[in-house]
């Protein structure tokens, strides 16, 4: 089918579903799995109400969205109290995000292909993305801004990419954008084409990189100033109270509302005098991943950003299902890696278990009263394991592909194996009467040298 027809069908299907069950957003808005204190629509509504009644929404602790949302939903689109208009806006955001994903895919594959429809479907049919969006969680806009930034970066337009990324910096917790900045600049400098099979060293034009960094910083500051004006009493005063309430939240974790991440339970149980130390540990732990991943995958920064999104989806504070959703949907961009995945089915099954356990144990704790917080925490651990398994597997596969050896078939398409002799099929050793399992292939001759290359 034509990609455009598929796209239209998917978007209208979603819209039809959301509009024919108008009670769905209300039923989902309290769900702890779909929205966190940073993304809940309920809190956004509260903040807008306070703002419109001339009360600083950041003086309390209910509202932690960016001021940019305030200006968006009070001046440009004053629709937050109209469910139908909200559904339209959120669906449009999702459609735009899916379209950006398709454009990223086109940039990477070098033109339109028959897979475009599949890429759009991977985003629009992903329940992890679909449900938060039905619950009108603002994580939809976070994902949209990240994908837009990546899309512009892939297409080489640096200023729009940096602007979109500055927007993402404002909408998402700051650590998220900090993690993605380096690979994003990498994409801008070396392009989106796949070079996983043929790793080479990245030579960075330091001057250009600094210039891009400075441009990004300017955008962030301009948007920040705009935000400060929005919150200010009148147009001439700037107010910076929102910085601590929005960016600071994911660093200081003042709100311990349960979510699917690993932070909340840990900090619920902790004595107060350990808090600063462990907050530091948890935050720095996230930052640790930037350099190794960026260096290891310097030849393919888009892949590096994909992996860092996966790491964020495992370890960040105030996690919602939309974060692992973005990671899983982005996996569609790298079909050359699929055959090298070692345990795709177990990862999927872990996600299936987590997706079933989370609502179930949440209900046992909060509505049935037969379980307690530990039940839900156990389910979030399963979620953590599922996310971790995904990241580790993609990380391995991204490196393994450089060795080659499995000219596998990905979705019926023969994948070109660079650097190998083209023979992807390996013989079984005769002395061992062992049937080789799918994941464990005898390696080609000379693989060790190539392994060294990857290791560097």
């Amino acid at each position, binding site marked *: 089918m034509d990609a455009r027809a598929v796209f239209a069908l998917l978007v209208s299907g979603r819209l039809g579903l959301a509009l024919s069950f108008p009670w769905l957003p209300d039923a989902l808005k309290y769900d702890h799995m779909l929205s966190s204190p940073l993304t809940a629509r309920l809190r956004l509504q509260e903040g807008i109400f306070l703002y419109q009644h001339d009360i600083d929404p950041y003086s309390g602790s209910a509202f932690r969205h960016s001021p940019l949302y305030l200006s968006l939903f009070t001046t440009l689109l004053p629709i937050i109290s109209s469910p139908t208009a909200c559904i339209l806006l959120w669906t449009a955001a999702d459609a735009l995000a899916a379209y950006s994903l398709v454009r990223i895919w086109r940039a990477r594959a070098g033109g339109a292909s028959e897979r475009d429809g599949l890429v759009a479907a991977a985003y629009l049919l992903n329940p992890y993305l679909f449900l938060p969006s039905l619950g009108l969680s603002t994580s939809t806009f976070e994902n949209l801004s990240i994908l837009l930034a990546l899309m512009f970066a892939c297409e080489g337009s640096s200023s729009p990419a940096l602007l979109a990324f500055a927007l993402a910096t404002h909408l998402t917790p700051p650590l998220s954008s900090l993690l993605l900045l380096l690979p994003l600049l990498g994409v801008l400098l070396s392009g989106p084409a796949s070079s996983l099979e043929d790793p080479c060293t990245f030579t960075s034009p330091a001057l250009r990189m600094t210039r891009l960094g400075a441009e990004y910083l300017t955008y962030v500051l301009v948007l920040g100033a705009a935000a400060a004006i929005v919150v200010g009493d009148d147009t001439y005063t700037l107010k910076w109270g929102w910085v601590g309430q929005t960016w600071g939240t994911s660093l200081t974790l003042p709100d311990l509302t349960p979510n699917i991440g690993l932070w909340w339970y840990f900090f619920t149980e902790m004595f107060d005098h350990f808090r600063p130390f462990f907050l530091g540990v948890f935050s720095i732990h996230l930052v640790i991943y930037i350099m190794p991943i960026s260096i290891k995958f310097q030849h393919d920064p888009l892949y590096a950003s994909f992996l860092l999104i996966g790491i964020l989806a495992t370890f960040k504070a105030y996690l919602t299902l939309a974060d692992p959703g973005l990671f899983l949907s982005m996996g569609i961009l790298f079909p050359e890696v699929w*055959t090298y995945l070692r345990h795709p*089915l*177990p990862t999927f*099954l872990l996600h*299936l*278990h987590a997706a*079933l*356990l989370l609502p*179930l*144990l949440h209900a*046992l704790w909060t*509505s*049935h*009263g*037969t*379980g*307690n917080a530990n039940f839900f925490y156990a389910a979030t651990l399963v979620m953590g394991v599922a996310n971790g398994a995904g990241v580790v597997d993609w990380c391995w596969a991204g490196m393994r592909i450089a060795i080659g050896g*499995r000219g*596998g*078939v*990905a*979705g*019926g398409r023969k994948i070109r194996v660079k650097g190998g002799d083209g023979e*992807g*099929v*390996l*013989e*079984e050793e005769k002395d*061992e009467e*062992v*049937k*080789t*399992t*799918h*994941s*464990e292939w005898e*390696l080609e001759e000379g693989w*060790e040298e190539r*392994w060294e290359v990857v290791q560097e």
Partner: protein
Amino acid sequence: MVTKLRRRRAFSALIYHRLSSVMAALFIVGYLWMILIPLPPLSQGTYIDENALQPAQVNTYWNWVDVHKADQYLYQLEALRHNNATSEQRAVFIRNEFSKLGLAASIQMYEFSTSSGPVRGHNAYAIMASPRASGTEAIVISASWISCIDEGSNTPNMRGISTVLSLAAFLKNQSLWAKDLIFVIGDNYLDGMHAWLNAYHGTIPSNLNTDLLQHSSGVIWTALNIDYSGHSFSHLGVFFEGLNGRLPNQDLMNSLYLIATYTGGVPVTVYDHLDPSEFPNKWEEMSIFPSWIPSAIRKSAYAQLYSYRARNVLRQLGYQARGRASGVHGLFHKFRIDAITLYAVPATGPHGFHALGKIVESTLRTANNLLERLHASFFFFILTSPGTFMKIGTFLPSAILISVAMMFGGLREWVDAGVTQQHYTTTSKGDKTPTTKVKWVPRSRPVLHALIIMIITHIMGIALFSLISTRWYMDSNSTCSLALVGLSLFLPSIILQGIPQPSSTAAPVWMVLKSFNLCFASTIISITSLLNFSLAAALAVTLGLPLTLASPSSIASPPLIKYAFYCILATGWLALCPREVADAIWNWEVLGVWFGPFVCIIYVPLVIQASLVCFYQS
């Protein structure tokens, strides 16, 4: 690095080779564990977890005067029944009696619309405000008009209602209640109380037409339901299973056990099962062992103990797996209320109103002591006998082991689908004779095909459920069910016609289908076991081996016996137990029990998928 890779390879090869025996071992241990659940060493003695309860620590004041009052109420009720009083007349009588006591009393009219016709009735209830507290919490003492004997088959619960009425008169005079007491007489068996509870909590479903309640009270924490239909009773039975497999907090039952034993002097049983050790001459009819086992073995004390506990476990399994409430108390659990039924096991003696009143009075005092809700984690148990129970850790592994074995089977099928053997001949450099070599070639897996088949079967499950819950199906039950079973025989060929064949180099669809089928079934079993162990165990028994053993036929025509077996396993229940089907539909429509939809939308499609695996030819 190389050694690490080699070691890992050798290890996974080892597991892969031993997988069949590992799976067999898991199945055997899992099924054996299920059989051994009633064994005494696996159970432990019950104890009170919540210290505030202090059961059987109070003097009771219920006396023969109150028994006389209960007798008088009984005469009036029997007169009503003798005159074939309508539901409304009965409710008016009870409301008037409550009002005479000075309680705030009222009547609730309700009507459910179901596919088998409307269900209507009248409930009477009264609220006694707590003399000690502000009435933020409440305890319910209830009786329904019909007793739970034979699942509500028209035995009126006269003495149960008289007990509630006389208790109302008695408890009103005491000043020590820290919680409101609510007395409810529900009409019919389950539907009356269901309507009352929904109206009380403001969760009126769309098919229920009812008045709003005139009087209300606080949050209900505990409920005791009294079921006393015989003339006298010998034992006090405890019924505790609620809708959708929910159980009350075990502390409530344990308290009742202590109170009945030490305050009331009445032996406690689980359900109406009598302990064979009390009736040495009846051991033969109480044994669950078949008669070909030598009677010396069957008569041994250990075998009798085993069969007593096995009957208790099986009964709990039957209620819980089907999501049935074993009595009126089962409706309360949904609202986070711990509730049980006190069932007076009909006998010629020796106990009556006197013992029952004392026990209820003391149990209410225990419930009155609570300062916070009963603890979490005491909700997952199997009551093997009144004084012994099993913790979750001692029974859960049985179902989990089977689900793990199924998961292994599914993963192996997935691995197998990814590779194929290719024979080819080469001539080696030394000698010129060609040698045949085997090499393993990776192949793609038709994931999308298998997923489409699965989605189609589940959609058909939804269609099946909406079909059997229509009025029309209920009316023409027997012919329709046979037609449906027959249709399920033809379905696979219809489905498979519509699915395009994958390319010839890809793995056969059945391998991926079987893999997904097993993995999904395993996931369902292990997730369900947390919520409702009995249902998970039932699924493990019905799905475990059949799904694992499903394989395509090697002969040209599909072997009909194997195929028919799966079809009967999937939809045979439609024709074999029509009453169960009607009950399940009624339970879904009126009480919201998930069992019917679950069977149609999850269980049937899973078995159909296995039958489709058999339909393929290898």
